[in-house]
């Protein structure tokens, strides 16, 4: 087990190096000269040239990249923001707690809404509740969640005046963003839970458990749910991984100062070091979330040979924030 975890962590290193190269080259060739961005359009040519030299922008691309990675590995230094001239690590870490809190709220919302309804829906297949849940689930996964966010603002802030439309100060500011992200994720969890429970509910061991006279709640929770848990866990894990990268569009709508908003603001102001750093952090969180899901597979289901830990069916249709 420990050997596997170490191996998986080691396997993450080339992927992260690849991500850094990819993002570095994409933003390196993006339109706009960093020196001009820092100094402004009116700066004299000499000043811009001096700035380019100072930033090392006149060096060959690969030299710049190697220097960038070396600094990250040796000093944990992601460079300085073009805009504020502060270290990127500082700028990102300032925003990360908000994103973490958001992700926690959204996951809670997702599990509380999606899991029980998914189970009930499968147990009472083709009933009114099931039909309703399936319909709502379909509509919710088909809705861009930023649109849902705007609809919620219209209803709860504009018409009913119950909740504040933007910002992130007290608990009441969290409800709508968490609902926006949580709702569509809950819908995909509901769909996965339903189909996974349906697959297990017709198995022989469930018939046996019932024949033994086991209580229905025990049958469902102990026999069915335990076996149906893997795809459910995958969806929760992947959603959490994506949420750690910030609910990009949702943060924009509700003006939440998280990592997603930081990324978009930095893209708009061409503050590329911040974008690079943030994307790297997201890739790291996402890979770690995937690793944790894989490890949990083997804890929940010892039959799974961890060597070939596979992606479970049901997660492929998953969409992000």
């Amino acid at each position, binding site marked *: 087990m420990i050997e596997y975890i170490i191996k998986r962590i080691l396997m993450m290193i*080339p*992927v*992260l190096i*690849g*991500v850094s190269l*990819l*993002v570095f080259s*994409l*933003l390196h*060739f*993006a*339109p706009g000269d960093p020196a001009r961005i820092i100094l402004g359009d009116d700066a004299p040519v000499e000043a811009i040239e001096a700035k380019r030299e100072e930033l090392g922008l006149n060096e060959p691309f690969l030299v710049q990249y190697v220097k960038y990675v070396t600094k990250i590995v040796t000093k944990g230094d992601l460079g300085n923001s073009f805009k504020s001239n502060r270290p990127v690590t500082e700028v990102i870490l300032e925003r990360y707690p908000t994103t973490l809190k958001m992700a926690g709220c959204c996951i809670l919302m997702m599990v509380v809404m999606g899991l029980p309804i998914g189970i009930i829906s499968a147990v009472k297949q083709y009933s009114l509740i099931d039909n309703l849940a*399936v319909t709502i689930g*379909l*509509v919710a*996964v*088909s*809705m*861009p969640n*930023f*649109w849902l966010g*705007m*609809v919620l*603002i*219209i209803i709860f*802030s*504009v018409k009913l005046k119950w909740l504040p*439309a933007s910002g992130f100060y007290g608990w009441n500011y969290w409800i709508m963003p968490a609902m926006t992200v949580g709702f569509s994720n809950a819908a995909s969890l509901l*769909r*996965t839970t339903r*189909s996974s429970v349906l697959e297990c509910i017709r198995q022989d061991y469930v018939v046996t458990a019932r024949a033994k006279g086991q209580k229905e709640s025990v049958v469902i929770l102990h026999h069915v749910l335990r076996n149906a848990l893997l795809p459910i866990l995958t969806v929760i894990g992947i959603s959490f*991984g*994506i949420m750690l*990268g910030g609910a*990009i*569009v949702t943060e*924009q*709508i509700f003006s939440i100062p998280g990592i997603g908003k930081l*990324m*978009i603001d930095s*893209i*708009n102001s061409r503050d590329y070091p911040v*974008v690079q750093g943030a*994307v790297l952090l*997201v*890739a790291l969180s*996402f*890979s770690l979330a995937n690793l944790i899901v894989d490890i949990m597979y083997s804890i929940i289901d010892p039959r799974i040979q961890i060597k070939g830990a596979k992606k479970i*069916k*049901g997660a*492929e*249709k998953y*969409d*992000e*924030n």
Partner: protein
Amino acid sequence: MMKTEGGGNKARKHRFGDAIFQFTRNRLAVFCLLVLGAIIFCALFADLIAPFGIDEQQISEALQAPSRSHWFGTDNYGRDIFSRVLHGGRVSLLVAIAATLLSTVFGVLFGSVAGYYEGRIGNLIMRIMDIFMAIPSLLMAIVLAASFGAGLNNTILAIAISSIPSFTRVVRAPILAVKQNEYMEASRAIGARTPRLILRHILPNILAIVIVQSTLGVANAIISVASLSFLGLGVQPPTPEWGTMLSAGRAYITKCYWMVTFPGLAIVLSVICLNVLGDALRDALDPRLKM
């Protein structure tokens, strides 16, 4: 979800016929196909159907609520939102379909190569895909769009590239399985060459999954296009596109709900239809894939 009981004898004779038969039994899917057809029709013939031009500004009629003359109301420039939603559909669907086509072609190509030639080439392709998949696909599309610059073609390219990895994975897995089948060995034993093996045995086996994935892919692409445009990284105003319309409406959300409601409903309706269609196609073409 449709029930899969026995079908008519005639339809069973042919796999394709059987699939169509199964599909038509799913009433919801047929209904969604008709609605989608109507949406595409409206988008294609927007010039003839739309009562106003996309840039026809009547400042005196700005920000009007839905009425008999303006079904979906008017925006801040006094442009008719109904007409813009119809024209916007043309752009949104075009971008989504073009991006999905591109990602399907390259996904099938990379997936087939990676699956068929498992060795060094296959490994290299999959490791590159791992790198792309370490970044959530919407974020990948955002970074690509930021790098390429905004605009219609760049948006198509950004969304296409960000969806190639998942296509590659989806295509590769069944190819690995098909390769193990005895008929492949038999075919090889009687002297069939690689092109014949791929065309006769492998492609027909992955066709179902490719069709299903592309249908669901268009649905996802519509949402991605809208998200990119909403963030100002995709299609640029004044081109009417559902995402840019939502973005413009955001500033007026407190007074004019119709500016964000109708473009959003257009997105939801198209995506629901495509999702239902994708699920139904999965059930009809390959019941083994049923979720």
